[in-house]
């Protein structure tokens, strides 16, 4: 059942009858959903239900796996993503991973890497981008005096904010986050959640999380995925986060969020 009750908001990404296969194994089964613009959409569901596979489809990262085949459409701002050059698409749709993965380079070089790859050479412009990105990721004040220090010397929470700053540096429109706080302590987790809340003003955010409380705290909309008997992931229910966590419509959602399975 799909209840696009956020239909009044502008849609950023529209997923239409999307299927994904790893060889013969179907990982995603006929997903249709609109992801609203400038909102935080959380995806929850039991392990193996295809949450990460689903968001990796948004910037075609699954294509790096040779056996992957897809059906259906994913439309970003009216354009079919499969008709956009993957490098350009990944500039528009950035990604932050579960474990902070800074490059073994200086803080400055971590941020400047993407813009350089997209052709920016002017040192002054790069400096501006680095400062702006670090400010947006609420890390600037903590690292402004040590930009030449290795990114790996930062704490886990700082490293993750560095990775978010790195994603912001190429001025994406959508930021995908796959369990961005699962390796962090509670304080660093709350900092990331506050940061995400600030970022939605400029970006559309899709976040996969195992932490139900995090989805409840940090998102505007929630999609609940489950795994069918053939292990294909499917969308059970979507809606405003406040509705999903207080009064879900589907019995499976109810059981999952109240800890009865998963």
């Amino acid at each position: 059942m799909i209840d696009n009750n956020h239909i009044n908001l502008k849609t950023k990404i529209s997923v239409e009858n999307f299927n994904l296969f790893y060889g013969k194994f179907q990982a995603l089964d006929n997903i249709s959903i609109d992801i609203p613009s400038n909102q935080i959409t959380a995806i929850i569901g039991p392990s193996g239900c295809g949450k990460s596979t689903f968001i990796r489809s948004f910037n075609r990262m699954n294509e790096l796996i040779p056996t992957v085949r897809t059906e259906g459409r994913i439309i970003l701002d009216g354009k079919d993503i499969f008709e956009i050059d993957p490098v350009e698409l990944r500039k528009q749709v950035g990604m932050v991973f579960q474990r902070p993965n800074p490059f073994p380079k200086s803080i400055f070089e971590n941020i400047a890497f993407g813009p350089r790859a997209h052709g920016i050479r002017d040192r002054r412009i790069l400096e501006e981008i680095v400062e702006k990105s670090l400010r947006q990721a609420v890390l600037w004040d903590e690292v402004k005096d040590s930009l030449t220090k290795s990114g790996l010397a930062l704490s886990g929470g700082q490293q993750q904010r560095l990775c978010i700053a790195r994603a912001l540096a190429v001025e994406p429109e959508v930021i995908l986050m796959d369990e961005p706080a699962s390796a962090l302590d509670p304080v660093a987790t709350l900092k990331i959640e506050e940061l995400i809340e600030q970022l939605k003003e400029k970006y559309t955010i899709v976040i996969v999380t195992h932490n139900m409380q995090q989805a409840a705290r940090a998102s505007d909309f929630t999609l609940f995925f489950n795994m069918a008997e053939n292990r294909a992931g499917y969308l059970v229910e979507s809606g405003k986060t406040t509705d999903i966590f207080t009064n879900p419509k589907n019995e499976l959602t109810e059981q999952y969020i109240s800890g009865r399975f998963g």
Partner: protein
Amino acid sequence: MARELFERKIKQIQDEILLLGSMVEQATLDSVTSFKNRDIEAARALIEDDQNINDKRFAIENAILILLATQQPLAHDLRQLAAMLLVANELERMGDYAKGVANNTIRLGINDLPIPYRDIEKMGELAVSMLHRSLSAFINEDISQAVAIPREDDAVDDLFNKCYRTIVNGMIANPATIDDASLLLWVVHNLERLADRVVNICERTIFIKSGEMMEMDGTDDELEA
């Protein structure tokens, strides 16, 4: 099913709410009896015993807060705990109505007045019967009962109006009794309000089951005894 410990704790709180409900039922019936018998000693004992009702309410509230803090309930579980918090509060307030009846029994002393005892007794019995069944419906999440019980409030309201008219007519006929007769108005008011709060319990039952906040009775103006 997972979460056996959590479900066991919910069950314990439900049992405590039923126990608190039965304390309030007994207090209400006793308050009407002591009023009818003009038994000042019994009324004093009732006022003292109200502390047990208050204590029980706080114990329930504490148990619910601990579950909210430690178990992160969501969806049905969250609605159920939130509703139990409110129902414990409703029951405590009902206990205050019984205490109010006892207070007025003491203030009334042994002054002689025309009192519609039978109708006041009937009000108490009806309200207590509604309360008893509403708590069963609350625990069993019985929507059909939760919808049906509030309709009985009309009978309590009718009795209230009848008593009110009798008491006011007595005041008009004998203005010297106005001070004492006004105490009688508080007695019937308290019983009428108790039945109103039963309606709130029924509303919470529907909320637990459906997530819908439904107003079943618009009159919620409050006066203190």
